[in-house]
Every structure is written in structure tokens, then in C-alpha cells.
């Protein structure tokens, strides 16, 4: 299995100096703690996490914009977290890992036309004659389903869905092996969201690109990812195939997340717990070093003072919860919880 790994994030820690005057605690905040994530070539992996979970920090670490204080990040077998200066710049110029930004209107230069925007990475990398450059730009636009006429327009003159396609074209023109998409569809309505998710799946099928979709929202990843990892306060607390994780969550936080997601039809989900059955409130119950979800967990036990490590939970699944096997049983014992 490890032979087929494209990206291998292994136990990374990211600490940032806390700048919040209000928090008064001096020293550093641990944004990511022992995060491991593997992505195989051509695989689509979803990372779901809410505000403060560290999902953007994880993306920035993989892109080499943040150096982890512990752990390694390997890409095609080479440790990229150890690269510095010239080597790191050379790796980035190659463009094997590309980022798709969240907000196309703010991440696209309003004064440039679409063709120039899409070609930017190629121009920085250099070494292409005019004809090959134009050919690659045209192919990238075609791959994302944009008509040729869009090439001459500016971001302000095209629709939101088209702009999101431009940000994807700008990434795939570099022929990357891995695409990191940070909230790629959260600004779109349901129909356009599905269009972009379909496009990502199609790019994977046609080009064999691996894709990581980072989102705070279930709807942005359900139906498209092969595997999902749930991030909570810098820890991956659960991982597995989306159908299983969303229907039968092993971690109480995943369960709360799924229960909280607005749904039109409850009948289409096997999962039928209500958020109020899962919410817990014991702020301050667990000190530093315990389970990060403890303060919100309904199933808190003495063991939770020790931080649970991710462990196997059936086939292809992991969970970091001491009570993963028992919390459901406790729920049944609490009528009308």
C-alpha cells in the first residue's frame, strides 16, 4: 500500500505563536498535533473540519508554506517538509501540488484576462514557447468545460461558476499530481456545487490527479470523495469511507456533525440521531492533554483525561475515541435523551 502513496503526511505538529492578547496564555498554540494523512494517486480525499480545526494549516503545510515542528511530509517518496530555500522554490515551481482557492473573485486578478491568469504558473516556470503555452492554456480551459470565448474576458465579466472553473484551470495547467481544494464550492448554490464536484471527479478520472477537498460542510464532499478524514482542533479524530463514516460515525463529534447538517429528507440517511442527543457540556472538565472533544462530549469518562490515539475501527476505518465502541449503547439507555 505504501508503494502506491503519493502524499504521506506523518505525525505532523504545527505550533504557532499565540498572538491573541485576550488569551493571556503565553507561548504557542498547537494548531496541528500528530496529524497523519495518506493520499494515493488518483484518490479523492475529503478533510472535513470546522473553524479552528486546523484544516487550512494542514493545506498550507502540504504546500510547503508552513514548516511543521515535528513529523514529515513525503511527496512521491521525497521528504518535502525538510526542503528549504532554493530546493523548496524549485519544488513549488514544478507545480506538482496545486492549490484551488476558496473565493475566486478575490483570488483572481480583476485586471487580467482569463488566458493570462491561467498561464501565470506556466510563465513563472518558464521554458515554453508561445505556441505550446497557448496550447496548454486552451487544453486546461477545455478540460474544465469553459468555452474558448471566456479566455479573453476578465473575472468580473463571467459568472461565479465560471470563475471557479478558471481557478481550477489555473491549477491543472501545471499538470499537477495533487490538487488541494480549500472550500472549493462553499460559495455556490447546490446545482453549481454539484457541477464543480462532478468536474473534479472527471479530472481525476481523465488525468489521474489526486485531489484533497477541504471543507467545513458535508455537502461539499459527500458523493465525491473516496475517503474522508474528520479534523477537530488539530487532530484527525476519525477517518474512513464516507458512506460508512456518515451513516455510522464512530466518534461522537462526527455524529454531532452529521446530526447537525440540515437535511431535506431523513429517510435517505441511515443515520437518525438528533443533535440534542449528542451535545454535551462540561467546559473545563478535562485539562490540557486529554481528549480535545471532552468539553463538548456527552459520553465523557475518566479515561478521557488521556488523549486517545487513532486506532482501527473495522475495515479501512480509524477513530480516536476511548468510547467509540460503547457510546451508542449509552445512548440507547437514555430514553428521550
Amino acid at each position, binding site marked *: 500500500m505504501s508503494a502506491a502513496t503519493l502524499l504521506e503526511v506523518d505525525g505532523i505538529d504545527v505550533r504557532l505563536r499565540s498572538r491573541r492578547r485576550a488569551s493571556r496564555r503565553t507561548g504557542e498554540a498547537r494548531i496541528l498535533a500528530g496529524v497523519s494523512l495518506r493520499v494515493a494517486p488518483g484518490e479523492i480525499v475529503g478533510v472535513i473540519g*470546522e473553524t479552528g480545526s486546523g484544516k487550512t494549516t494542514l493545506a498550507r503545510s502540504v504546500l510547503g508554506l508552513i514548516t511543521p515542528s515535528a513529523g514529515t511530509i513525503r511527496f512521491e517518496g521525497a521528504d518535502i517538509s525538510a526542503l528549504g530555500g532554493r530546493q523548496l522554490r524549485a519544488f513549488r515551481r514544478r507545480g506538482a501540488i496545486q492549490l484551488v482557492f476558496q473565493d475566486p473573485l478575490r483570488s483572481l486578478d480583476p485586471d487580467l484576462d482569463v488566458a493570462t491568469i491561467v498561464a501565470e504558473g506556466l510563465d513563472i516556470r518558464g521554458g515554453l514557447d508561445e505556441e505550446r503555452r497557448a496550447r496548454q492554456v486552451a487544453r486546461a480551459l477545455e478540460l474544465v468545460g469553459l468555452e474558448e470565448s471566456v479566455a479573453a474576458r476578465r473575472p468580473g465579466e463571467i459568472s461565479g461558476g465560471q470563475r471557479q472553473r478558471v481557478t481550477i484551470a489555473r491549477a491543472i495547467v501545471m499538470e499537477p499530481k495533487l490538487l488541494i481544494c480549500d472550500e472549493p464550492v462553499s460559495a455556490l448554490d*447546490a*446545482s453549481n456545487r454539484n457541477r464543480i464536484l462532478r468536474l473534479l471527479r472527471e479530472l481525476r478520472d481523465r488525468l489521474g490527479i489526486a485531489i484533497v477537498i477541504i471543507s467545513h460542510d*458535508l*455537502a461539499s464532499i459527500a*458523493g465525491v470523495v473516496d475517503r474522508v478524514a474528520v479534523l477537530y482542533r488539530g487532530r484527525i479524530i476519525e477517518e474512513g469511507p464516507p458512506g460508512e463514516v456518515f451513516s455510522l460515525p464512530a466518534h461522537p463529534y462526527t455524529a454531532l456533525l452529521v446530526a447537525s447538517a*440540515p437535511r*431535506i429528507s431523513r*429517510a435517505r440517511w*441511515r443515520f437518525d440521531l438528533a443533535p440534542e442527543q449528542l451535545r454535551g457540556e462540561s467546559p473545563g472538565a478535562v485539562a490540557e492533554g486529554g481528549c480535545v472533544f471532552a468539553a463538548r462530549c456527552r459520553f465523557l469518562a475518566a479515561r478521557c483525561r488521556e488523549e486517545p490515539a487513532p486506532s482501527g475501527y473495522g475495515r479501512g476505518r480509524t477513530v480516536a475515541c476511548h468510547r467509540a465502541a460503547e457510546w451508542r449503547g449509552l445512548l440507547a439507555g437514555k430514553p428521550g435523551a
Partner: protein
Amino acid sequence: MSGSLPGPGLSASRESLEPRPELVLRVRGLSVEVATASGRIEAVRGVGFELRRGEAIGLVGESGSGKTLTCRAVLGALPAGCVLSGGTIELDGVDLAALDRSGWTSVRSTRVGAVFQDPASYLNPSLPVGEQLAEVIRVKGGKRRAAARGRALELLATMHLHRPAHVYQQIPAELSGGMLQRVMIAIAVACDPVLLVADEATTALDLTTQREVIDLLSELRERLGLAVVFVSHDLAAVAELCDRVAVFYAGEVVEIGDTVSVISAPSHPYTEALLRVGFLGSEEEAALEVIPGRHPRLGEASAGCRFAPRCAHRRESCSRPLGLTPAPAGGRVRCLRSPELALVGAELG
């Protein structure tokens, strides 16, 4: 309040047991025009709905569908360049559309509360949030300083903010998005309004927080008898909170009715399409359905059915102008073919 009901939006039957609560809001024939380089264009046309005490109605649709303009019109706060070009907005029997600026201001401060998507931008970043809330109570509610402080603390507790006295002292930057939205709701209901307008108020929040805010709004409806207009592009979020739903398309209401009927037995092909693209999360669901074509831009809408160019059921007759007619499931629908179509809704569990 949760009990065994699957969700607050799915509990409409409760009403039939009691006499109907009094009417709070009646919007009729509401039209809004937008000034553009090529003259005034109608952006909202002939929108009407009613809302009783303790009821919630969801206005749902894509961006540009007119849902937000409708809600801004109800607040008397249309963006620059937009004018109310027709219709009436009756709040407790008084037509707001006929009010002048100062009349609106007094209605907005006491009878109608509003919450928007980005709470931080409505608060002073350097003042403790509790003081800002107390200020509203003092100025608009005419209370003395000490009484206002007491009421503010009470309201923060009602919003389920832990340690209200502590939160009172905090500035906006020290609070999470969900906590800020609770503070905004506290400000909105501070002077006991009859109507609360929530414009994409849960859209930018995390899932767990979004649900908490929806539950809070639901609780305020029941406890205070507050009528709620809830605007969202997310039909699922609307279904969680609202008794009734109005589906907007290209500036018009295309279907309106009680939430359960509309989502389980839609009468308009656009509603059906919205339901189809919104089905997510089940294992077999990998189709990621889309609605073909695109939503018309301002001024592009045709005389007949505005959804027709994207509709699989369109006929030539769909180019004729049409109004809302009674739908089989009890609501009203703007579709010539709806009596003969067998549209598929969501299975309610």
C-alpha cells in the same frame, strides 16, 4: 422542545388543533425595481405571503432570485438603486410601504428585528458586546442604565450563552461566529419585536453552530411567539426551521405552501429540481445532479414561465404569462402543467 418530532419544520400539524394565531405580516403584490444603465428593471414581481404569530416562513432560491430583495423590502432597507414599485407590506394591519423614513426607523427598532450573515460587521469592534446590547435596550426600549444592563444579561442567558456576565464584557473579536450571531439575535429581539427577519443568518456558520442557531430561533418562535422570515439559499436549512416555504425563481414566487407538502409533494418542476440537487449523503448518491442551464440574469426573464428554458416538462403553452394557482398538495404554484405532472418529492422519515 425537541421531543420525538423529527424537526421543527415538520410539525405543522400542531396548528390545526388550536385556533389560528393572529396575523402579523401580510405582504401583497410586492414588486421591486432596480435602476440600471438601461433603465429600471423589475427584480421582484408580485410577491405575496402571510405570516401569523409564532410562524416561520422560509424564502428560498438562488442568488438573483429576489428572496433577499423581498426581505430587505420588508425591513424597509432596500439597497441603493432599488425601489419598492408596488404592493403592500402590512405589519399588524399597518401598511409599511406607505411609511416615510422616520416611520420605518421606529418600526424597525421596536416591531421588527433583523439578523444578517455577517454579525461582526454590525457590531462596534472595540466595545464590549453586552454594552452594545444594553445600549439598544436603553435607547430604543427606554430603560434606565441599570435596568438595561440587567435585561441584557438576561437576554444573553436566553440565547444560551454560557457565563453571560463574562460574555457581556467581551469585545466582538473575542467571540466565535456562533456566539456573535447569538448576540445579534439578542439585539434583534431586545425590544420584543413581533417579527424577526433572518437573512442568510446561518449560512456562514459551522455545521454544529448553524444547527444551534436554528434551534435557538425555533425556541424563540415558541417561547416569544415571534414570527420569523428566514431567508436562505439552502432548502434543507429552511426545512429545519420553517412551517412554510416560498420558492423564488427569477424574481417571482413559483411555489408556496407548508414545508411538509412542498418538500414531500412538490408541484413546481423547479422545486423538484432543487430537491434533487440537494439530496446528499446517502451512499447510493453519487450522481451529483445538476439543473441544466442557468438562472436568468436581471431583465432576462421572459413573459411566460421563467423556468421554462431549463424545464424538462416545458410545452409551447409555457410561454404564456401565468399566475399562482392552487396546488394539489394545498399550496400555490406557478406552473401551467402542474396538475398533470407527477413530480417526485423527498421521502420524509
